[in-house]
């Protein structure tokens, strides 16, 4: 066996292990355990929104489940784009296939046109179960197209972020997505259009360091983990134990980065209200003339 095959084999074992972990993180069975407060509860107490009845933490959702919570009227965009394997990374294509099977998405973000009670929005939902919602080339492509289409059709954008950061298997190509999407966000803003981001658990790394922090209005879900560097990396670097609520949505708000923390069950109503307040403005009609 050549070293390369050994590496390939090892890498496959690792990805399988990881994938199994992601799979098992999708709650199943009749008991749930909250990763924040560690309380265990019967699944019916979850309610319709998958929220911990004890502490209010919103469990991670697949993009399709999140979409169902928001609206029934939606048209998906760019479901036909196919992820390339720019580094021919061992085991990557299998990993992608499994992620696609779990999430029923072509990539780690769902994008499309959605109606929130007659309000048209360009909607993006990242899926934390698709290789940790990592930022692949096609993820970036779908997001850039989302903002470009929104600019063209003068639509507001609502984006739910959930990401472990860059897609390591795509190397530098993943990194480039941060600038690519940011540029599309800029043009959307320059057209005077509204961008609302909803930071969900977890939003980290390259996604935090780009379009997650570029919205006009920044909402976060309670207790969501939001940060740039990973907790362990920071702890090893500063040689200190970090407080439990470090990088929590609540802490982030105190530090000046979050407008509102909105519990999942109120989210749809809040988004509609914010859309209405921004879009319907008779003074604007005067002013733009």
């Amino acid at each position, binding site marked *: 066996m050549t070293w390369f095959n050994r590496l390939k084999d090892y890498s496959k074992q690792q990805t399988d292990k990881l994938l199994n972990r992601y799979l098992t993180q999708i709650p199943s069975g009749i008991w749930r355990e909250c990763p924040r407060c560690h309380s265990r509860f019967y699944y019916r107490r979850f309610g319709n929104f998958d929220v911990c009845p004890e502490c209010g933490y919103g469990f991670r959702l697949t993009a399709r489940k999140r979409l169902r919570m928001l609206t029934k009227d939606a048209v998906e965009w760019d479901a036909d784009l196919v992820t390339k394997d720019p580094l021919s990374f061992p085991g990557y294509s299998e990993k992608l296939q499994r992620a696609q099977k779990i999430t029923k998405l072509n990539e780690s973000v769902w994008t499309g046109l959605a109606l929130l009670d007659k309000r048209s929005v360009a909607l993006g939902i990242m899926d934390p179960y698709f290789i940790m919602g990592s930022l692949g080339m096609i993820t970036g492509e779908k997001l850039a197209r989302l903002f470009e289409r929104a600019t063209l059709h003068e639509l507001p954008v609502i984006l739910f972020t959930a990401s472990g950061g860059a897609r390591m298997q795509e190397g530098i190509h993943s990194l480039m997505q941060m600038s690519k999407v940011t540029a599309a966000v800029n043009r959307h803003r320059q057209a005077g259009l509204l961008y609302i981001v909803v930071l969900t658990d977890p939003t980290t790394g390259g996604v935090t360091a780009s379009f997650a922090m570029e919205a006009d*209005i920044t909402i976060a879900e309670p207790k969501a983990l939001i940060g740039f560097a990973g907790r362990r990396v920071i702890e090893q670097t500063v040689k200190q134990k970090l407080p439990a609520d470090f990088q929590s949505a609540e802490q982030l708000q105190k*530090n*000046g980065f979050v407008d509102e923390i909105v519990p999942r069950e109120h989210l749809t109503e809040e988004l509609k209200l914010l859309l209405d*307040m*921004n879009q319907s*403005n008779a003074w604007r009609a005067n002013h733009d003339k």
Partner: protein
Amino acid sequence: MTNKEKVSAAEVVKRARSDNKTDSRVMIKQLLTDFREFHGDRNSADDPAIIGGIGRLLDRSVTLISTQKGHDVENRLATHFGSPEPWGYRKAIRLMKQAELFCRPVVTLINTPGAFPGMDAEKAGQGEAIASCIATMMNLKVPVISLIFGEGGSGGALALASSDRVWMTEHSEYAVLSPEGFASILWKDAKRSSEAAEVMGLTPAALLDAGVVEQILPEPLDLVGLRQQLFSAFNELFALTPDALVEQRYQRFRKF
């Protein structure tokens, strides 16, 4: 303004500083519907001494920014009795730029002894933050109306009052610094603050004469009336082109 009594400038200052002033949050609630508070300067912190957000004035969206003293001890300490820190002004700047982008007018409500003179505040660039806030307001392409409803403490107040129109309530004051500070700097005697208050011309009537403010509103404030007044004033100001609006504001301050 009802001219029911002649009060001394020192008495005006006392009333302006009164603890019985309407709480900012209560005022906002009565002035706007669906007010949504937005937090943070996107840089370092969220200052409780400045509240900002969007809401509806009658049927139209406006951005509102207000200083906040708080009504209990804990709140008053957290806000340093309504003295904003640099991150408070930077939040205000962020929200004003957002208002401009979405073509919303801006209302500012002011009751502050001044910007907070603290070490952290100084380190974070209190001066720069106030300067940027003024610069932002002077260039803003949407109308801004300010109401001073208590203390208008120096640069800390001006930072939010570089507006198209500045209104004051009957029992409020607006000055380059506190009468105590004025007396101690010019006369080396803080006890002569009453005398200083007279000299400084910090009463609403004196400021109206000087053209620093456009209108004095009687107290207790009629918030339903104020809503209507703001609405009409914004209608007038929105009739101007954005460039004409900025030019008018330029001339408003150029005359001094």
